[in-house]
């Protein structure tokens, strides 16, 4: 996805991404600021149009007419980081949750649907919260109300952008436990965007690591986080407290600008393998070819790295 910049030039925020979310699957999309994860999420919600490529839902590509998008958004709902910002302070919780139904013209059984959504989000008994205002609720309860607002339309996927980052640490667990329960009870899939690898470890089935607009490693959480292959993933995991990796690798510098993506492998300027000469055998490829992680079967672990790519073997 390209964005024009003032003064000319383009910033390619998302570059060649293949990402699948299966029904009832929780996928974490992880990366640091500026890696393109929020732009990607906006594209998945139809809030931005891709410059190239497509977003598909249940096998059919997204169409961008107002009507098509409205229908799509019943199935794919968004939850943002800050519940206080998402809830209108002058609306009761009932109205906040009912809003989605009203926008989509669903009039029958409104009260029952709102009650069911609140209940599923853990606000019980739901009637107790109908007349409450956001400021009367705790942080965790507010985020549950936001989730109820998403659930009331009976979506199949939730896109959650840092769903617990604004909550106090001791409260995060209840929201994460809720997302897991919704997955178990309703087969609700989720794409959770976060910079917090611990969160991914806590609830995700699969994880995709993004660097400068590209997914550089993707696979089951247990594999990617305990046996990371891509040098960037290895560095990120290694600096966490009590890391499964023995030595912390603190990378120098920060993510480069999406307007000036390096040639060849985009991680090369910061890559410890390249810098140390351990990648000498493939150095030419690192300088000229940018690998992409192709989407594949759910259980596979893929790496966009010339040195550490995992060869496909028939039954491995």
């Amino acid at each position, binding site marked *: 996805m390209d964005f024009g910049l003032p003064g000319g030039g383009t910033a390619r925020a998302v570059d060649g991404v293949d990402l699948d979310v299966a029904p009832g699957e929780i996928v974490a999309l992880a990366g640091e600021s500026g890696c393109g994860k929020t732009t990607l999420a906006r594209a998945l919600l139809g809030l931005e149009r891709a410059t190239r490529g497509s977003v598909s839902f249940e096998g059919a590509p997204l169409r961008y007419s107002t009507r098509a998008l409205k229908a799509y958004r019943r199935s794919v709902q968004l939850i943002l980081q800050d519940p206080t910002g998402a809830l209108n302070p002058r609306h009761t919780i009932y109205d906040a949750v009912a809003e989605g139904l009203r926008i989509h013209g669903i009039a029958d059984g409104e009260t029952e649907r709102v009650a069911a959504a609140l209940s599923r989000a853990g606000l019980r008994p739901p009637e107790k919260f109908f007349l409450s205002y956001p400021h009367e609720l705790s942080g965790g309860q507010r985020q549950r109300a936001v989730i109820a607002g998403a659930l009331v339309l009976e979506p199949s996927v939730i896109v959650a952008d840092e769903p617990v980052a604004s909550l106090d640490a001791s409260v995060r667990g209840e929201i994460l436990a809720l997302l897991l329960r919704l997955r178990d009870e309703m087969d609700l899939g989720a794409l959770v965007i976060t910079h917090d690898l611990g969160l991914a470890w806590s609830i995700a089935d699969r994880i995709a690591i993004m660097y400068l607009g590209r997914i550089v490693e993707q696979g089951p959480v247990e594999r990617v986080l305990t046996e990371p292959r891509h040098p960037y993933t290895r560095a990120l995991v290694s600096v966490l*407290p009590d890391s*499964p990796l023995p030595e912390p690798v603190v990378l120098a510098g920060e993510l480069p600008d999406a307007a000036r993506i390096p040639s060849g492998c985009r991680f090369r300027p910061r890559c410890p393998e390249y810098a140390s000469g351990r990648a000498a055998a493939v150095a030419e490829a690192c300088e000229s070819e940018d690998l992409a992680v192709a989407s594949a079967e759910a259980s596979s672990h893929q790496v966009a790295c010339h040195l550490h790519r995992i060869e496909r073997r028939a039954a491995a």
Partner: protein
Amino acid sequence: MTLLQIRDLDVTYRGPRGAVPAVRGVDLTLEAGRTLGIAGESGCGKSTLAMAVLRLLPANAVVTGEILLDGEDVLTMGWGRLRAVRWVGASIVFQGAMHSLNAVQRIGPQIAEPILVHEKVTKAAANRRAVELLEMVGLPASRARRYPHELSGGQRQRVMIAMALACDPDLIVADEATTALDVMVQAQVLELITGLVAERGVGLVMISHDLSVLSATCDRTAVMYAGRVVELGPARELFARARHPYSAALGSAFPVIGDAASRRRPGGLAGDPPDPAALPPGCSFRPRCPVAAQGCAAAEPELLALPGPGERHSACFVAQAGGPVVVDAQGSRS
């Protein structure tokens, strides 16, 4: 001599709703060259505590107790002496310090400013020191001529650290100094801070809600809840095996990658941290406590040394009686 001694510190804010106790009877010490982590969430009093160390609290804050910095009480110092101590005796790095920089002044002069105020040096010498400090925090000298908006968040935070080091203080207080930063930038900044602490024998107080980061960076951790220290002990052990139910809950919010026990089992507490203006009777943690017992509503537990090795202290009646502070997955206490 002990670098920092906080004795029976109380801070109460006087406001339209009456008196709000933010810090209640806190005792802490820190030796030079050591690191103390203070862990806690909204409303626990940790930031009030940090500001109190340099008397940076607003006029409506009533402070009692003692804060001894190298033996001198900050709270009763004369104004002139206090000015001399700030930046030189102790300095603070705040969260979102990136927003504390003067937007219309270049970086170099901002770092040079405390040097010029406190030392008899020429402007040129101060600017040279500023450049050295930038290099010490991993930023190129050319940044001295830039304005804050030309730097990234991580870079601005490093500028604040450079400023905090400018006058060679004996004590640095870092209040959520890395919280808003990306993982890798946080690692860079922590590496920098701990390296400087080790090299220069500076004392460091590190405040964070992230108990796992404190366990990896500090010698000891004090956990604060509702204005009091509820647990104190060696940082790693406190994180690995808490002796207060709140510390246990806080620790479980930061799962260790690779630990199968924390896969798909997010830990946490219901409710919110309490409003300091409306604390419950007895132990302030009782409403959210998974192991609360009979006596917990009657009185607030004191922070006492627990029997056994390792210098563990806990303000929990159950822990003090040798009981378990967590309920395991099967519902039984462990």
